[in-house]
């Protein structure tokens, strides 16, 4: 791995070390309805080139839906999302900007081996010959300490390994923009810390613009440049991670530092009187 970080504003290709301009993302007054359910409410923020932006929020607050808008899998009901200044919903943008989304479930292709999962993108886009692809795939597996799993089937991997394979598959795309959907959920604290380190390292080494959706407070505090908090589809806070240490808003405080209070009204229903 190269040791010196890229200068700001440039993405370093993990394979060729060639530097290209990093891309920014801008979300403007984005609203999304599914039928009568309003999932996103007038969300506005932007992510600077080369930044790690962490989006936090409780389950069901619309984080995954927001990510899908950035990669163009969902269309806004109103408002606009642009990536590198281009409309995220147009197919042309996907051809011009390499975006990689690491799905919460990993979304690995179950019928393909780990190797073929990673090799699919360069093969389909005819990026190099098989030898070149092999080199890329093996290099990506090595970066994520996945040596020796290349011939395994995704269904034989543990949760943490699946996430790492999904990240490796994204890395092979040589992305200018990396998006992670809850990369540390369902993982034990040690594996979570490893994944956080990987995300931070990839960003430092290659200067890829990174958006991480998570409700992992440690991840946000440790690796983010800025943090946004989404609740019920609205962005209620946006600022540096230091803001998270002593939140003033009671809702945010409750979300970030939940207390188990046995006297809380929500426990009253559970009480049984003999």
């Amino acid at each position, binding site marked *: 791995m190269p040791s010196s970080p890229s200068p700001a504003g440039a993405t370093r290709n993990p394979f060729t070390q060639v530097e290209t301009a990093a891309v920014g993302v801008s979300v403007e007054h984005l609203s999304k309805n599914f039928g009568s359910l309003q999932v996103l409410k007038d969300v506005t923020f932007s992510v600077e080139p080369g930044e790690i932006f962490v989006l936090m929020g409780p389950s069901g607050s619309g984080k995954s839906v927001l990510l899908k808008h950035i990669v163009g899998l969902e269309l806004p009901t109103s408002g606009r999302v642009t990536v590198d200044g281009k409309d995220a919903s147009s197919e042309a943008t996907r*051809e011009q900007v390499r975006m*990689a*989304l690491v799905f919460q479930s990993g*979304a690995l292709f179950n019928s393909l081996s780990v190797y073929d999962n990673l090799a*699919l993108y360069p093969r*389909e886009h005819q990026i190099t010959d098989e030898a070149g692809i092999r080199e890329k795939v093996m290099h990506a597996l090595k970066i994520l300490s996945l040596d020796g799993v290349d011939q395994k089937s995704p269904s034989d991997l543990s949760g943490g390994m699946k996430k790492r394979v999904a990240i490796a598959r994204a890395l092979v795309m040589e992305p200018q923009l990396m998006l992670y959907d809850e990369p540390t959920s369902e993982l034990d604290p040690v594996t979570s810390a490893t994944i956080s380190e990987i995300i931070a390292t990839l960003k430092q080494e290659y200067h890829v613009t990174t958006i991480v959706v998570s409700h992992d407070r440690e991840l946000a505090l440790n690796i983010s440049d800025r943090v946004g908090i989404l609740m019920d589809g609205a962005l209620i806070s946006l600022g540096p991670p230091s803001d998270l240490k002593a939140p003033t808003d009671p809702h945010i405080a409750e979300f970030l530092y939940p207390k188990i209070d046995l006297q809380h009204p929500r426990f009253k229903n559970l009480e049984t009187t003999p």
Partner: protein
Amino acid sequence: MKQLNNILEGFGSTWLLLVRSLSYTATLPRQFGRFVEQCYLIGYTTLPIVAILSFFIGSVLALQAGRSMQDFGTQQFIGSLVGLSMARELGPVMVAILLAGRVGSAIAAELASMKVYQEVDALETMNIPPARMLVLPRLAAVLVMMPVLTIIGDLVGWFGGAIVAKYTKIISIEPESYFAVLRHYTHFNDVINGLMKAELFGFVVVLVCCNIGLNTRGGPREIGASVTRAVVVSLILILVLDYFVTQVLT
């Protein structure tokens, strides 16, 4: 009203999928591996059952026809009846129905599960159109395999008829005369006619099952619902299309 809406929507999305898939036809040579894999899958899953069913359909045809033809003393024409029915109608329709049950359901299940587990979304973010990678090789494979399966079905059915004709007491026709009559009355055109039907049915079944699989929404429960829908819609389409195509082709 909602039902009609769903039917129209299904029709529209199927057309769209067809147009999309065909627009990638030029990529077929480099997807040769996938195409061969699909051919193998279609052949491997349907051939044994096509052979067994055609044999018995041919036999039953000969048996039933033998009974009634014997009343008129015309049982020597059994070969023409079995030959024509198998080639023009029963062969293609039966192969298509088996294709829907075995291959169509498998396609719907596989694509629905890829959709539900976000593999299809992953393909899209990788800028790999599902129509190109998942649908096109299957459409190409079914076009190649349907005639093969139908011809095998026809031959086995004719053969089944011949055996019944020989060993059923009231019929007792030697294979030589059975096949002589069959050949005299069943023309090359009749076989081609049946193959054209088979191509159409097979293509429609695969296209519809792909579309239903790819349009699955919701959780794992919906995979089962999609498979059922794919098979039911396929069967209805086979029989409805058969009526119209038979009218046009006669």
